[in-house]
């Protein structure tokens, strides 16, 4: 599943960030491949806002489409 398909409020694990520049920037912000994040909100047709602890970042829709994630249910089970 790609990041742009995540719904607001869902918890996901970042699996792959193919773009190397974006990946570098994500790591600096505190999110790497394997991090668990919450989809804070989604602007219609626009950016996806992610949250990890107290860190919020906005990701343009185009970039979000390239990022692979895995859904994580509330109980911690992966689907």
């Amino acid at each position, binding site marked *: 599943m790609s990041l742009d398909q995540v719904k607001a409020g869902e918890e996901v694990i970042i699996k792959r960030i193919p773009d190397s520049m974006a990946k570098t920037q*994500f790591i*600096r912000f*505190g999110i*790497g491949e394997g991090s668990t994040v919450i989809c*804070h*909100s989604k602007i219609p047709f626009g*950016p996806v806002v992610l949250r990890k602890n*107290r860190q919020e970042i*906005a*990701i343009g829709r185009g970039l979000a489409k390239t990022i692979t994630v895995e859904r994580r249910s509330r109980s911690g089970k992966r689907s």
Partner: protein
Amino acid sequence: MGKEVKVAKTTHGGHCHSGSLALDLPENCEKIVLVGNPNVGKSVFFNYFSGLYVDVSNYPGTTIEISQARYKNNAIIDTPGIYGVSSFNDEEIVARDIILSADKVVNVVDAVHIERDLFLTLQLIDMGLPLVVALNFMDEVEEQDLKIDVDLLSDLLGVPVIPTIAVKKRGLADVESALLEAREGHQDSFLHKKLHEMLSRVGSQPEALMVLEGDPYVAARHGIEPAADREEIYVRRRERVNDIVGHVVSEARMSETIRQKIGRLVLNPIAGIPILALVLYGLYELVGVLVAQIIVGFTEKTVMNGYWEPFIRGVVNPIISQKTALGTILIGEFGLLTMTVTYLLGLLLPLVFGFYLALALMEDSGYLPRLATLVDRVLTSIGLNGRAVVPLILGFGCVTMATITTRLLGTEREKTIATAILQWAIPCSAQLGVITVLLAAIGGAYTLLYAGIIFLVLVTIGTVLSRWLPGQSSPLLIDLPPLRFPKPSNVVRKAATRTYGFMKEATPWFFMGALIVSVMQVTGMLNIWQNLWAPITTGWLRLPKEAATAFVMGLVRRDFGAAGLYAMHLSAMQTVVALVTITLFVPCIASIMILFKERGAKQAVLIWIGSWILAFGLGGILAQLLVRVI
């Protein structure tokens, strides 16, 4: 000056003049550099150390402003807010070079976002720089029921860590005294061997790390290929940060604060748009009404036109008559002592300050990145991303100022698109004022026609340039800082510092521009120019002959051009044609000066010539069409 003695060089090979930033300081002084992520309250620390005299200047070869000051016998230098040291954009390049020349670093860390900020801290430690960490926003840590074990953090990092609440001035003195204990922290053992090898090739540990992390610029300086270890080093560093954070941070509960709730509301599609409208309206009232109309009305009309110009004419005229060539240049219509001084002090100074004030308010409150997020979708369709909202909004105030802020965009391609849109299609507040009056006289339908045409032009320019320019625009990827109530004194100081920097830069350009126009006037070239364009005005644009004067005036200042249309009796259709033409017409002198400076001569000339073609081409087509239809 003769007192200066040659002393052994400081740790990292630079005396205080290295990096070409010059302060009058003894050669054995230390360079203390302030480093931190954006929005961590770094400026409060700088103000504390710097005292009254601060030098703000462009970092050589760039358009990034750097503040530096004397602190005791040492230099204290501020750097742009960065998330890591490398060379991904101009700001990082400047920060990197200043950090590379540092003797000591004060790293300001946002304690609430410690997980993000420690990445930079560990990078500075891996560079082997003597470090003091100021752990700021400790009050918010308490508010949010977080607990940070400061002593353990200091042990794990191997450097002094001082808890601070900068806005309340708490802990600042402790940071100052800790400077004496600044030391190199615990470096990554994995990096150690690699660093050691690289060190023998480049001779300095900070630079060795940059080369290992693949910095092409630093590698080129040493004539070697950048290494490809960045991703590995970054991932490891991130793991170390997470490990440290896991040890030192504990939290009782994770509940949403009121500010976080508002932050969520701002991004909510239903609540976000009305909030956005409200914020924009507030900014318009502040800059567009209070500053641009009321304050400028007083400073330009009452003070400068009313008192200064008659006064200086009275002083100069008896010595050098206004009728002579020199007199015209000094105190004539475009005079250096009359128009130029009036524009600079009566118009530009309050406008620029007003804009920087608005910008600082949006920055310090944390709203700006959220605004960028909201409008990202719309802007990607014209080859920009959400961050371009800043220059575009500012453009409606002053195109000159807005052109400068295109600096913050990610790629050259985006800077070009944004600059072209600004210079061609966005009317500035001064022009907008005159345009509004003229449109009010001809009614709503024509106003819609005018607005529709300009909007269409704006979208077309963006779309065409976005298709035509090579490369790709950068995607939006930004950090959303928490919403904070901006501290008034900080906002004012920030705006004042930037205004000073801007005025210092713009002033010589202004005098030069006015000098050129005055010389044209004295030599009669202005008249020739005017007659040259008359046929196009009457034949092609179907406007009265006198309209040519308005276009010549528009060369000097955009609202001049529009104001020149006041005196003419134009039909409604002629008004629309004239307004479309004058809006798309060449930017004002100040704008052109900045355009050359920011975008280089080649692009500036293209944009300038393009605006002639666009204005007269579209204006003419419109005139020909409207005449046929009606």
